[in-house]
């Protein structure tokens, strides 16, 4: 191996090695141990689950799963829960899909993931990275949903009424972000879709909350989620090298 300046730059001062010891090799072994990143418990668990250290590392670098984002999400939902307790309106459930849609749209893409182009040339498929990150954001929001519904006592009905619309709105945000290659457009589409669902709920029976309490919305939500998932799969399909 020839080096940039000298092989093992900055470590040549030691002079000739005693005997046959190759100091460059020794230094590489030391540097490898000193510089390596020790994965945290979440990354180790993800690595075992996904059977790919690369995917696990991509998962823990998800822009919308970084600590600041998660704290902001929890603060918004706690504020919603506080207002809900005072007013009796389920503000947590009304806010959550839009918050989750933004989290999903900011999971992966140009302008959001700095190394997006480089990631596209990697052996671990960028589609897998996208799917794993989207699933992780869904999972986090589902956990938050369960915690919030348990805390507020509304329990299963609110969680069900929350998670199904959230899934549909998030799928819309993901599909739009993927098609347009713009997370901002994805957030706009997800938020707009959710506002339309709220307004249509109000039109149906005069209540905003119908969007999360009316059981007749469940099937359209699920159908929308399936359609959006199909769009994402189509857009991220394996491109042909030749046509």
């Amino acid at each position, binding site marked *: 191996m020839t080096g*940039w300046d000298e092989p093992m730059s900055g470590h040549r001062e030691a002079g000739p090695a005693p005997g046959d010891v190759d100091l460059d090799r020794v230094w590489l072994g030391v540097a490898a*141990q000193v*510089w*390596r990143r020790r994965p945290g418990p979440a990354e180790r668990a993800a690595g075992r689950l996904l059977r790919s250290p690369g995917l696990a590392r991509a998962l823990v670098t998800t822009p919308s799963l970084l600590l600041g984002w998660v704290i902001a999400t929890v603060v918004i939902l706690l504020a919603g829960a506080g207002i809900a307790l005072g007013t009796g309106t389920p503000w947590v459930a009304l806010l959550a899909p839009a918050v989750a849609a933004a989290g999903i749209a900011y999971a992966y893409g140009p302008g959001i993931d*700095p*190394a997006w182009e480089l990631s596209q040339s990697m*052996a671990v498929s960028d589609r897998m990275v996208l799917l794993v990150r989207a699933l992780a954001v869904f999972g986090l929001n589902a956990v938050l949903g369960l915690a919030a519904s348990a805390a507020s006592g509304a329990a299963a009905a609110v969680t069900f009424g929350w998670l199904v619309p959230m899934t549909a709105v998030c799928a819309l945000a993901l599909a739009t972000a993927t098609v347009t290659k713009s997370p901002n457009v994805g957030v706009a589409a997800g938020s707009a879709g959710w506002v339309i669902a709220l307004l249509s709920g109000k039109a149906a029976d005069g209540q905003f909350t119908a969007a999360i309490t009316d059981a007749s919305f469940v099937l359209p939500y699920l159908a929308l989620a399936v359609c959006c998932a199909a769009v994402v799969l189509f857009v991220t399909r394996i491109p042909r*090298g*030749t046509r």
Partner: protein
Amino acid sequence: MNVELTDLNRKFGHTRAVAGVSLEAGPGVFGLLGPNGAGKTSLLRMMATVLPPTSGKLRLLERDPGSYGPRREIRRRLGYLPQNLGYYPGFTVADFVEYFALLKDMPPGQVPRAVAAAIEHVGLGDRARSKLRTLSGGMLRRAGIAQAIVNEPELLLLDEPTAGLDPEQRVSFRALLRDFGQRSTVIVSTHLVEDVAAACTEVMLMDAGRVVFHGTPGELIARGEGHGVGDAPLERGYSAVLAAARS
């Protein structure tokens, strides 16, 4: 042959970025020259399997990148430095190189040593634990080169690799190119003809998506004798070929 391109085309809407490029390249250092908008980056992105061609045939490392399995195998053995290198500001140099080593599907047991070797190779050993946001532009470029070479690639694609490097670093970088060129196919897109003169065994000059010259640096110099504009012989060859192609 590590790279086989046959009548490769790439369109963006009505704009034809790459128009009928054919090329065969084995081990060696291959320079890709041309003015802005010539199609160098699009061609390199197709070879990096980031951008599918609109038409034509592309084979890399004797595989068809159009199929999932072969493409994954190509990517394991590929090194790519994009023109605009994105990075995570909070990562250290070692974290950054290790991340891409893992995404290249390198065996996890080999990763720490390969990362250390790549970082030392580009002379960033003393900054291995520094956050990327604290590095200069030239150091970031070297970190990008380190991730490209971490898997000892058989096909190394570098888009403007010397941007931001000072003259001393560029001399060292050319040595690295020559070293890799002995066992791998190295394709370097650049505006700087002196990089080509110093390190490349073959040159391809592109203009408006087409290949207007393909030969050795010596042949390009010969094309500029008595013609062209430029301070260096290779620059005169470059401008003479471009002028002839546009006339």
